[in-house]
């Protein structure tokens, strides 16, 4: 094993600037969309008084939980002392901060009164999980920046482990907090479940790693840096494992709901008759987002091919968006149980007449705003790796640390 050398990302300037230009254009379009929705009011969006959080929230929540998931790689390296992941720690931290920034921007730009952000930062209602999240997010950024320093600076070395632990605990709190934004809403049937906190943590593992792997593979390929099969195998197995955990939580969530009779209607609707939501659940979330990538990642032949691994990562991300669409929008579209045991025949406020789901179709400005958040995250990452030494020069097998366990080693020292 050689010493890991980090180097700035040096792709040809034309390529670099066209990449930045592309991302900046996406951000510009998102800014126009924001201006349009803000100037006209939210009536130009698909959101209404029943589905109050729409597509921007799907993007924002995806970016925020993927941000915390992206930090896993760094944690595994430092906290769980797996040396093979150490060279990836810096990129993992950078990506985490970048995605969090992107996600928060989308969230803020979708407020009805975005210019009052200062109010949100100076008035806190401490019984609100939302207010707590503001601290969790800002704290996360500060901690990850300190973490990056401890990884990159010689003087930071001794602090690396304690900061790593703090970052790990914080990111778990952050994702649990994000899940709890939904998990403690007694009003909505799909949300009234504390399991959403840990479920979001499990989803974040998979989404964060999928994004991380794509960025890593893209960055390395563009510049011709090698990634060895050993590293690839590790990442791919980890992703498959994370998808499995996420599936497990999804299963438990629905089984718990099915167990509670009052949620039968919701589950029946979601799993069988919810139209687009049912489709996105089964096809997007379960099939495309979980089972197919797992199959690829465990396939003896395909799992060795770079293109297939990229495909699996992309599918996990598609699945992530489907999952969040179902969780965030589907749960609002399902009518609230105002009068159990009754059917609403007429209502002046779309209360789910005869059990009808609330309408919602994302509009172009909403989608463009969300895409802008993704572009912000990628722009920060691209600039970061270009100007600072975030990426190791090589991840070839002879550079990365050997696997610490070998299969034939005895699990315990033999008694003498």
């Amino acid at each position, binding site marked *: 094993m050689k010493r890991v050398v980090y180097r700035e990302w040096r792709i040809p300037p034309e390529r670099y600037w066209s990449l930045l230009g592309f991302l900046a254009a996406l951000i510009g379009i998102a800014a126009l969309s924001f201006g349009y929705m803000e100037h006209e009011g939210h009536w130009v969006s698909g*959101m209404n008084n029943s589905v109050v959080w729409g597509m921007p929230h799907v993007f924002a929540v995806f970016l925020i939980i993927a941000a915390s998931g992206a930090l896993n790689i760094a944690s595994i390296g430092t906290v769980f002392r797996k040396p093979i992941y150490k060279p990836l720690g810096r990129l993992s931290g950078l990506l985490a901060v970048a995605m969090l920034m992107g996600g928060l921007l989308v969230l803020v730009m979708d407020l*009805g009164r975005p210019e009052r952000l200062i109010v949100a930062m100076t008035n806190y209602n401490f019984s609100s999980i939302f207010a707590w999240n503001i601290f969790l997010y800002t704290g996360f950024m500060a901690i990850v920046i300190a973490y990056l320093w401890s990884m990159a600076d010689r003087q930071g070395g001794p602090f690396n482990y304690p900061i790593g632990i703090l970052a790990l605990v914080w990111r778990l709190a952050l994702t649990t907090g994000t899940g709890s934004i939904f998990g403690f809403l007694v009003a909505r049937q799909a949300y009234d479940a504390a399991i959403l906190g840990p479920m979001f943590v499990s989803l974040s593992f998979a989404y964060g790693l999928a994004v991380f792997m794509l960025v890593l593979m893209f960055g390395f390929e563009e510049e011709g840096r090698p990634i060895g099969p050993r590293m690839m195998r590790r990442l791919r197995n980890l992703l498959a494992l994370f998808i499995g955990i996420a599936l497990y939580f999804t299963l438990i969530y629905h089984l718990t709901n099915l167990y509670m009779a009052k949620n039968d209607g919701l589950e029946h609707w979601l799993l069988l008759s919810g139209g687009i939501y049912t489709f996105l659940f089964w096809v997007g979330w379960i099939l495309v987002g979980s089972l197919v990538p797992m199959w690829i990642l465990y396939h003896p032949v395909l799992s060795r091919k770079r293109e297939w691994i990229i495909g699996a990562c992309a599918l996990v991300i598609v699945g992530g968006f489907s999952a969040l669409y179902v969780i965030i929008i589907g749960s609002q579209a399902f009518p609230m149980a105002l009068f159990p045991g009754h059917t609403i025949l007429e209502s002046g406020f779309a209360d789910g007449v005869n059990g009808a789901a609330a309408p919602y179709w994302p509009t172009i400005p909403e989608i463009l705003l969300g895409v802008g958040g993704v572009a912000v995250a990628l722009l920060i990452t691209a600039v970061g790796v270009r100007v600072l030494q975030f990426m190791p020069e090589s991840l070839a097998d002879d550079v990365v640390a050997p696997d610490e366990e070998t299969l034939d080693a005895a699990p315990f020292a033999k008694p003498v």
Partner: protein
Amino acid sequence: MNENATRIASTSDETPASTVDAGRRGFIGTAAGLSAAALVAPGVFLHSVAAAPRSEPVTDSVRWGLLIDTAKCADGCSACVDACDRENGLDLQEPHGSESKWEHQKSVWIRKVKLQDNQTGRITNLPMMCQHCEHPPCVDVCPTGASFKRADGIVMVDRHLCIGCRYCMMACPYKARSFIHQNTSGQLTAVPRGKGCVESCNLCVHRRDHGEESTACVDACAQEGHGAIVFGDLKDPDSAISQRLREIPSRQIREDLVLNTGVRYAGV
């Protein structure tokens, strides 16, 4: 950008729009525990509509509430809804977008709901509005404290503090809140509204603060001869509402959530 929040057109002739009810302003600040916020947008203070504005701070010696007798609520009648719309300027909303979209995006503070019991087939009509919960989920979740409960039990939104995040709408079990999706025009001085904020029934708070007896919906219902809604002080054992509550069985909607709502229903 948000000129509409600060442009409060007066459609009420009696009062000059510039009269600021200082007592009320002071109150909103203290009640929400957020007096500093009153400095945020000094143009948006509420204006008085009638003589004799309340000069004392609101206390918790009263708790305002409504009792709705669904047996008296007539099928097809929308007097309360229309009166509320007029009282709070919601009838001045101009449609935006397609008709079906507007149905889902316009502000509604009170609505008529017609229900059928799944077992017995019995039909019930009732008006739904903010239930003025004693433990309001909307107040719990609001990040800035814009959603607040007054000492007299009225739950409302401080328009200076609301950032339009809509988390309160996610949390309200009664779907009582509306988001203002569009530019507003021709508002009433007593009821400032602004694009990007959330709003809901406030038990005609401007009437409360000028010593008027009832709410617009109650008056309209009585005028129609139905008398299905009673307004009053739940804490005063002699008030009409307390007496009526002692006489007839009533319940809260979604009683399972134990929010101790200020709005009670008989016959559901």
